[in-house]
């Protein structure tokens, strides 16, 4: 709440200015609502759930990071291999005459 009640009064009135810009409206998907419904369970301890949710999120993040670094490593390996192949292309292989 604002400290000055006048400010509060002013903020409630329309300013008369026209604001321009993009307004993003996101509707919650039914799936999200379905998950949120779980918290209404009469026997579920919300503190325990919240702590488990945080741990699960951390774990998810960690797995994502691991996946990303594995992908990076794979990409790097692929690049190294292709550059090695390029190096081989550059090599001058001496012509060997068979039987001599």
């Amino acid at each position, binding site marked *: 709440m604002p400290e000055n009640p006048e400010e509060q009064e002013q903020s409630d009135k329309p300013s008369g200015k026209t604001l321009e810009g993009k307004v993003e409206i996101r509707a919650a998907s039914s799936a999200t609502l379905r*998950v949120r*419904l779980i918290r209404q*369970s009469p*026997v579920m301890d919300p503190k325990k759930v919240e702590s*488990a949710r945080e741990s699960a*999120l951390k774990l*998810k993040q960690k797995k994502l990071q691991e996946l990303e670094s594995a992908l990076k490593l794979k990409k790097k390996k692929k690049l190294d291999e292709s550059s090695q192949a390029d190096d081989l292309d550059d090599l001058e292989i001496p012509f060997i005459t068979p039987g001599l």
Partner: protein
Amino acid sequence: MPVRSPIRSVFINCPFDEKAGYKKLFDALIFTVYDCGFFVRCGLETIDSGESRFQKICELIRECPYAIHDISKTELDTKTGLPRFNMPLELGLFLGANEFGRGRRKVCLILDTERDRYDKFCSDLSGVDIAWHANQPKKLVSEVRDWFQSRINQEPASKREFLPDGEVIFGRFREFVKDLPALCAERRLNRHRLKYGDYTPLMVGWLEAHPP
């Protein structure tokens, strides 16, 4: 204090003891329930020595509009030579509540291992549409998902949604199982001796971090 009853509560009736060998199916089952946007209610959720097991089950059935009854593990106990009757008893209780109880009509899914096996040990159920999973978690996930989709199709248009295919849900379940050791290690939990009260928040937290 009475427990709040959300519209999408699902009472789960299945064996919980390790001897029954139902653990893999149970884990896949509850994952599917949550991933489809419903809540699990079962006898494992609270430990109250002051309340009888039967009372607790009655309370859960009263609060849940939906139920999944898996009657596949009714084999004879190797030690006692007697069959497991808890699942058929709880199924009967649920059907009775639906028949004689007040309020909204309850709906259930009955699962077994084979298509018509139940006819041999519970013939009063003849003519009832049941689903079978052949003890395969993947098949169970698909059957449960299809049933939830059929329930969602009955809901008001604004709440209707398309659930992903059973194979997609099963794939998500496998991802969760892969992540479970790391999640347990962070909490210093033994994943082989994970209790229901520790397992479900881990699963729900994971689902929130991995929206479908």
